[in-house]
């Protein structure tokens, strides 16, 4: 290191000390001790204002002791224990990550939370009064603020989570409101391109005179994707009935099979071909993942269906099914919300309804107010999220450019506890 370098380093080290030496050590000002808000109890919070002497050379000590009977005099230091000792340029209110609406002290103040845990001994107990003292220490010098008393207690509401609750309530109102609207009048839904692909596939099967295979996935009737698969089956069955093509629907869940049987029957009725309906077009194979897959693969290889539909939820078996299906030269249409299987459906199928498109397709076909209303409610939710992203980014950028404090808006979009 050069001589100049060394001098500069020494200067850099000395500079803050010199500045501090100039500031007289003072007792912590604006000291407040209160029950920690928004928590389950057994904790007190101490806050005090920053001082000119704050810096690496100065430290703060926090001492706590059980307060005696309230005599009006300041409690004695005997029986108090030091529970925290930290540099005076640390422990600020802003470190605690709380939103502006639940803060009572400026962000620049110091803050320390007294509770059981790492290095805090047994902490403080609810219902007991404690005296807290904070002192500023530099070398052998120390200045103490007068002791303050407070009682920790548990709270009934976590105000930090107010934005969370507001989102739940507002979104709930939007969803139920949309369902009400959908009950009264038509709701617009954009055309789902995948549905044209469905019709095209049925058309081609008819031309070739080959059967159609339709799978409803691994889920039971409580899963939204299975419900959507059953609704779309209704549409497919109606078309199939009109063209008198053969339909095969192998199942993994007996209840789903029963439901689908009803739906298929209804579709044939609506198409005016009740005689063409075959009870055994819906059939049960087994609940087990791989036995089912092996059996369906067998059907694909033997019967060579012209179109395969994979709707509903799928697991690892997806690739075993679609790869075999692709090898028989069938048109394959998939629709699933199982996102880790989507890459395989997208690569091996001719058309894939991705995630929510499956629900949308089902709502589009069923025209059921609850489904349509929910979809609209979610759309409004997404629009709000898009708005939050736009406004948030704009404000955050503005804040960097102008130094403006925008936390009054940004805190609303944050998950602070």
């Amino acid at each position, binding site marked *: 290191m050069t001589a100049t370098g060394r001098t500069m380093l020494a200067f850099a080290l000395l500079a803050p000390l010199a500045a501090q030496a100039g500031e007289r050590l003072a007792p912590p000002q604006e000291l407040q001790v209160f029950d920690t808000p928004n928590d389950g109890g057994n904790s007190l919070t101490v806050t005090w204002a920053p001082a000119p002497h704050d810096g690496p050379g100065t430290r703060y000590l926090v001492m706590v002791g059980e307060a005696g009977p309230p005599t009006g005099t300041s409690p004695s230091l005997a029986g108090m224990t030091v529970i925290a000792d930290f540099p005076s340029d640390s422990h600020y209110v802003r470190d605690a990550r709380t939103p502006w609406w639940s803060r009572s002290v400026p962000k620049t103040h110091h803050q320390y939370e007294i509770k059981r*845990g790492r290095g805090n001994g047994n902490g403080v107990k609810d219902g007991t009064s404690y005296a807290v003292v904070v002192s500023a220490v530099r070398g052998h010098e120390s200045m103490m603020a007068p002791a303050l008393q407070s009682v920790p207690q548990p709270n009934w509401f976590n105000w930090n989570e107010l934005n969370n609750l507001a989102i739940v309530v507002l979104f709930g109102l939007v969803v139920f409101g949309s369902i009400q609207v959908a009950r009264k009048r038509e709701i617009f839904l954009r055309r789902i391109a995948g549905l044209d692909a469905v019709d095209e596939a049925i058309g081609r099967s008819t031309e070739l005179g080959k059967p159609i295979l339709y799978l409803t996935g691994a889920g039971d009737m409580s899963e939204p994707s299975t419900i959507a698969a059953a609704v779309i089956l209704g549409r497919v069955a109606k078309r199939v009935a009109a063209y008198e093509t053969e339909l095969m629907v192998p199942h993994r869940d007996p209840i789903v099979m029963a439901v689908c049987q009803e739906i298929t029957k209804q579709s044939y009725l609506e198409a005016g071909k009740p005689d063409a309906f075959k009870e055994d077009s819906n059939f049960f194979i087994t609940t087990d993942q791989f036995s089912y897959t092996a059996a369906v693969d067998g059907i694909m290889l033997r019967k060579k269906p012209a179109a395969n539909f994979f709707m509903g939820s799928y697991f690892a078996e997806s690739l075993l099914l679609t*790869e075999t299906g692709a*090898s028989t030269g069938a048109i394959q249409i998939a629709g699933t919300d199982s*996102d*880790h299987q989507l890459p395989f459906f997208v690569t091996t199928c001719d058309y894939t309804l991705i995630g929510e498109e499956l629900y949308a397709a089902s709502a589009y076909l069923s025209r059921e107010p609850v489904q349509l209303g929910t979809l609209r409610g979610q759309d409004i939710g997404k629009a709000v999220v898009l708005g939050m992203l736009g406004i948030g980014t704009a404000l955050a950028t503005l804040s960097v450019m102008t130094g403006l404090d925008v936390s009054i808006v940004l805190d609303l979009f944050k998950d602070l*506890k």
Partner: protein
Amino acid sequence: MTFAERMLRIDRRIIFLLIGACTLIPLLFPMGLAIKTSPEVTSVYDYIEHMPEGSVFLLSLDFDPASKPELYPQAVALLHHAFTRNLRVIGMTLWLPGTGMANEVITHVAQERGKVNGKDYVFLGWSPGGGSVIINMGQSISTAFPTDYYNQPTASLPVLEGVQSLRDVQYVVSLAAGTTGIETWYVFGKDKYKFELGGGCTGVIAPGLYPLLRSGQINGLIGGLRGAAEYEVLIGRKGRAVAGMDAQSVTHLAIIVLVILCNVFYLTIRRSTRGGGQASPAGN
């Protein structure tokens, strides 16, 4: 049928044989290629490396035998690291079919490191309920698991001294093969009980966890066999994962070649049909 069409329609069993060979040969004759470490894995390593001795580390082995080749080596590496650092280790699983493996890996590594059950580590076993188990552990570990896997009361185990709930655990790593795993540990655990959370997962679910990694909801992510191999390199103890990476290299390259071949044939077919269509009127 043209050559390209014939090639695209070859029996898939030929490809099966090719893949089998590409996996088998590097396993028998390893090459030992160097493995680079990524920031996702390093941050898990660094966190454990900087934990003070005796602090509590919980490893949740949330996978079943189907994911053993990927996640078992991760568990081995993490446990070796934790035991070397003299951390107190709590093992458990949220996946029923994984119980036997989880017990085996913990016991095995502990034995190798000379650690004592009940004093240096504990295996809590499995409990049903997924998220409810985590919430319950956040309130009290001895309520969620009154006894450990070997029926010892958890409340009186030396290793759990001073550890009443998840609030007293410093670091949790979930090795997950599905949705009951890392996300569950975040949503029902870290979010409220404030421990640090890391993740290890199979390659299938890894891409879906990146949003959580970016937002700091998990502090690191060990992805698949590659992640396990990186961790083995970091702790300087090469095992099954590093050994498997050679086979990975060859099979991956084989698949890339297959994809390229597929597209070359596909494009020739497309061009020839298109070209043929244009040529015929001109020929007439």
